[in-house]
């Protein structure tokens, strides 16, 4: 059962996700209180262990905010993150959990709007489920 205020862990790439979160805050956009933000040097650092640990500790969902394909400062870090997320989604489905618990979200540094929108979409998905 998902509470009204779901706990979401956002792993944010320092190059894109973090500035986007800060942009959203500076614009005063609505973000849920249950959002926990973890900055990482690269989206590709969001390792399987982190994502599973977050779910294990009771997070309702995990989001990985990384750079768009073709814009990673470390060439392919974002692609690795995406592959990892897709793999974990498959696994979740196999054990009967919703794959929507882990999502990969590419963002640009100056797109606070999109950041808030994606988080809201995730909240809606969780509450709708």
């Amino acid at each position, binding site marked *: 059962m998902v509470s009204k205020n779901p706990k979401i862990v956002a792993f944010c790439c320092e190059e894109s996700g973090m500035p986007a979160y800060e942009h959203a805050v500076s614009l005063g956009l609505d973000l849920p209180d249950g959002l*926990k933000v973890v900055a990482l040097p690269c989206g590709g650092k969001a390792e399987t262990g*982190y994502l599973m*640990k977050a779910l294990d500790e009771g997070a309702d969902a995990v989001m990985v905010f990384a750079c768009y394909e073709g814009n990673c400062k*470390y*060439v392919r870090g974002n692609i690795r993150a995406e592959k990892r997320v897709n793999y974990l989604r498959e696994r979740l489905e196999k054990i009967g959990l919703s794959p929507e618990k882990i999502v990969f979200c590419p963002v640009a540094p100056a797109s606070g709007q999109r950041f808030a929108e994606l988080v809201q979409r995730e909240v809606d998905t969780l509450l709708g489920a």
Partner: protein
Amino acid sequence: MSGQQAVLRIPAGTSELKEVSIQPSVIVAGDHPAGLLMAEHLADLGVAVTLMVPFPTLEEVVAPYRVIASADESVAGLLQEVAERVSQHAGITRVTQADLVDISGWWGDFSVQARIGEDLKTFHTSGIAMAYRGNPVDLPGIPVQEGVLPFTDFLSGINLQTGALAGKAESPKQVVFLLDAGERDEKWASVAAIRVGVFLKRKFGTQVFILCRELKVSVDEMEQDYRAARESGIIVFKYRQTPRVEKGSGGLRVVFEDAAAISSHGPSEITLDALDVVVAQERLGLSEDRAEVLRKLRIPLEDGVAGPNNPQFTGRTPKKGVVVAGDAWFPEYPTDAAMTALSAAQELYKWVGKGTYQVDAYRVAEVDPSKCATCLTCFRICPHDSIRVERYGERNVYITQGAKEGATWEAARVKIETCDGCGLCASECPAKAIQLIYYPDMEVLDFLAKNL
């Protein structure tokens, strides 16, 4: 609410600065004139430059661009005397008939192997610039036949005094420049065709036709030169499908559908006949040997050009201390290529110009050799080619716990000078042998445990 969330930031932390001394030296290698410009600028800034060209003289680097320089003052201003200046520059060591065949090492400590004639010689340097000309790979959509020349062969083969092409006695009467037949989005040939076309027309009375898919004018003063070309009698057509090039009466024949003709009676076909030569824009690419050198440094090659197709790498490569210029970066008109090359030279200067650098030994990844299984995962993943698996003999012996003293051990090792601390290796290491010193896994896991 905005800004109320629990946030774990990357620890700013005290940095552990380590002074490294980097000799201000570079090797500039290649056959593109952009290399000469880079060498000159860097040498003027006090960097010890070794310039390697595959020819007996520096003049041969510039020679194929002489016809463009005759047709365009701004190119002349760039290239006219650069070969002379560089050949007399006291800060540049010139190595002729040399080809760079292998690079190993890291920023500040590269070992470069060059083939000089029959011999192999090793050079040591802090930074490397590769300014390569492209080789014609193919003429897309145009069957190879007599009278059809790749653009670069045309440029290097023309005699500036007589206008005659290599192997011919006099200048051609009618020339067609056939552009854009390939898929790649390049404008160098369009600009060169217009400017060289005007030169041929004025100097030798050659009738010039230019056939293109799009008229590319996004170069300084190009629109004005295009106008000058039309006024001097050069005829420009836009075609839809790649024109047919075939044997005609008294020369070659080119047939195509005119895309610019506005007519409600359907498409209009145009035939140009009795042509002496068809100059076709080829696809340019790096030679296999050169591509191999880049591949070994794990500089990605996309579509025949070097460096990742990624805005984060403007004018540089993921390998610290190595830059690529000339057609190897992207085939460009000489003035554009000069700008790209000099911005790459600036990147290189930042890396080697200062002499001593402060390297942060804290914001990096570290391998625990006792856990390393030498699976090479990190080696394959590292975007900066900063991890090597090394077996150390006498010195720097990695000792595992419990191993006998003096035992040599193979383990991965991070080169801290070039590590950016992105953590990709740490997140993929199956043995969990790698940690970011400044941001260990425990920080993230503790945060999750506390806040959920």
